[in-house]
């Protein structure tokens, strides 16, 4: 009984170790209940680097007229993915990194298509599906940017395909709204991806703050319940991290240094599944995505935009930023990238700060202040919340002393860069930044040593 009491009191219901509850839900409520807004800009600047690999080779020239979905960048590396024109228009400028197009027309994937309304037959073979994913330029849209076709071409036997709709990052609701509005396309995409990797079952996983999404999908699944499973998981960051999601659903850990496929798992984001449906059933390559613009903006919301849309333009669309001392983050507030401080829409547009890529899930505007870093008080909170089970405080200490051997012995290499340690630190120490730095330094050292031995 004591044990049960102890667990009730001090360990929240959880299917993976550690983790945090960053907010009480006000953040997601900012954009909750609003429909996705379709937005077509006047120009787009499409980055030719969308996958993990180097930038694609441009295959169009300034002055060319391109059609929406036409190939504009050819991948030359197995970790790169093809880039397509996200709009119809005239190419105004091309260089090694980006292609600028003046927009004449943009249809975005047609939601009147049959696969948005009902279950469709998948007539392609596994190989054909993988080829389509490659031609469509699909990459992991949850943030990793790993080329989907490369992942699905695996020779490993896959038992579970997990469609990741956890969306554990605070503030972001783009996946949630996509499920609510385009659930059938996601279900069809999930079924196609299941066939593409040869999985025995496909599970759409969501945090239990999205019960309404499960209900919506269950309704669509009526009569086809066996094809796709919908699973609710406890709401806890980082539930949507690949390793933690697999642990929560399948009860297994991916051995250090291995890929999920080796435990028979495959994970793809909700938006990837939807993009797969667009490519496989509609012939639309991956040229658009839904992005959440939220935080200190006048009208937070979710926007369906072509890849290459200027971020500043979207912020202006959301009513510009409200606070002067803001920080603007591309991605989620836990793992995103800082664009800068004290920005407004005009400044962001003038400086061509960023454009929407296939992996941009959100743009979050927050108050830029932060209390000063102070001494570690040895409270041990970072040890409790680390989902990897490592000791951020010890790794930070050794990293700052330049002791990489100790960092390696403390398994700095296993850090998943979720940021939970920095979030929870009452002394506001930059634990995550230092542990990730230590991880990179240790990995570089291991590579160096391996090269010397070879």
């Amino acid at each position: 009984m004591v044990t049960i009491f102890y667990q009730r009191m001090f360990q929240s219901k959880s299917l993976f170790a550690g983790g945090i509850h960053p907010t009480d839900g006000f953040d997601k409520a900012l954009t909750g209940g609003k429909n996705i807004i379709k937005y077509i800009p006047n120009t787009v600047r499409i980055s030719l680097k969308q996958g993990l690999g180097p930038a694609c080779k441009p295959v169009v020239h300034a002055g060319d007229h391109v059609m929406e979905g036409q190939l504009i960048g050819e991948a030359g590396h197995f970790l790169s993915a093809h880039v397509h024109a996200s709009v119809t228009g005239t190419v105004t400028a091309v260089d090694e990194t980006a292609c600028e197009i003046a927009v004449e027309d943009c249809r975005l994937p047609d939601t009147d298509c049959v696969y948005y309304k009902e279950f469709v037959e998948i007539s392609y073979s596994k190989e054909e599906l993988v080829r389509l994913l490659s031609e469509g330029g699909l990459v992991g849209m949850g943030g990793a940017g790993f080329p989907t076709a490369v992942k699905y071409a695996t020779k490993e036997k896959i038992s579970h395909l997990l469609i990741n709709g956890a969306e554990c990052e605070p503030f972001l609701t783009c996946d949630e709204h996509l499920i609510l509005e385009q659930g059938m396309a996601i279900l069809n995409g999930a079924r196609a991806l299941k066939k593409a990797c040869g999985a025995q079952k496909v599970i759409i996983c969501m945090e239990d703050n999205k019960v309404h999404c499960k209900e919506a999908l269950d309704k669509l699944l009526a009569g086809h319940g066996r094809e796709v499973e919908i699973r609710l998981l406890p709401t806890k960051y980082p539930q949507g991290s690949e390793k933690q999601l697999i642990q929560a659903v399948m009860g297994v850990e991916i051995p250090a240094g291995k890929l999920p496929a080796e435990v028979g798992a495959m994970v793809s984001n909700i938006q990837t599944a939807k993009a797969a449906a667009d490519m496989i059933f509609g012939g639309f390559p991956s040229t658009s995505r839904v992005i959440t613009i939220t935080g200190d903006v006048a009208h937070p919301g979710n926007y369906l935009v072509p890849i290459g849309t200027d971020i500043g333009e979207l912020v202006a669309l959301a009513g510009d930023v409200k606070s002067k001392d803001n920080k603007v983050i591309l991605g989620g507030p836990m793992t995103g990238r800082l664009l800068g401080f004290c920005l407004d829409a005009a400044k962001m547009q003038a400086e061509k700060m960023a454009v929407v890529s296939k992996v941009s899930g959100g743009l979050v505007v927050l108050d830029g202040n932060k209390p000063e870093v102070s001494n570690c008080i040895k409270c041990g909170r970072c040890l409790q919340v680390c989902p990897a089970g490592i000791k951020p405080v010890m790794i930070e200490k050794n990293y700052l002393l330049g002791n990489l051997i100790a960092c390696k012995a403390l398994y700095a290499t296993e850090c998943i860069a979720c940021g939970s340690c920095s979030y929870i630190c009452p002394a506001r120490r930059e634990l995550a930044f230092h542990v990730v730095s230590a991880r990179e330094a240790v990995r570089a050292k291991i590579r160096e040593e391996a090269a010397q031995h070879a």
Partner: protein
Amino acid sequence: MHKDVHSPYIRTKVTTASIMQDVCVALVPALVGAIIFFGIGSLLITLVSVATCVAGEALWQFAHHQKITVKDFSAVVTGMLLAFNVPSTTPLWVIVLGAAFSILVVKQFFGGIGNNVINPALMGRLFLMLVYPTKIMSYAEPMDVDAITSATVLASLKATGKTGYSLWDAFVGKVPGSLGETSALLLLIGFAYLVWKKEVNVAISGAFFATICIISLCLGQNPFMQLFAGGVVLGGCYMLTDYNLASGSGKWIYGIAAGMIVMAIRLWGTYPEGVCFALLIVNSMSGLIDGLLKKGHIYGIED
């Protein structure tokens, strides 16, 4: 203004200062109890102790051109805990010395908050015990207008085998003793607040109390009297739980070791009370205990 240049860009509301403030709040019921039992002098001692700690820390940091960190409230906690560990009859100049020793020698000499090895309040109390034993060893009878001093429960238990006080008095705090330690009831109310705020780990305190109960039962002592008399509740709830990075199973060992030392000193030592020594010993052992235990599970690594 400080900028957040590294992810994550959101942080919990809990800060070092908020934790320390919560501890201060948790100690307030016991302070009110002390004023009721031992008079307004208790409040005066506490205020002087806190003021000395805060001023000592600020002056030291000012003199050394360090950032002044008194706003984190840790000096306030040290001041309150030190005051709680001395009797209400302590002269004010003695408490000033003790507080100065705590904050300067034990805390600032080692590098300030987080870097001190040992709990400053405990060390300050030990310092006074050794340097001015007579000044902090006369315990007032609670709620007594004539200010008669008498032996503590544990001292009379040790000397005569009897206490002269009921268990209820010991639980509520109507017994002679250090000003903040006598009322188990009020200290536990404050502790419940900290547990509710998830700021302390009950494993350490639980193991500590359980060990004392079990040893008392085995050796024919009244376990409740051993728990409620003396500094077990104050030490177990507020000082043993002082942060020390002890990992999971280390916490149990930590509490059990402290409990065993307390009972050994109480039963077979010269002093009637052993909490102060026990806590100092386990404080110093925390690194050792952590080192002896297995490292805990790391994701993806076979144990």
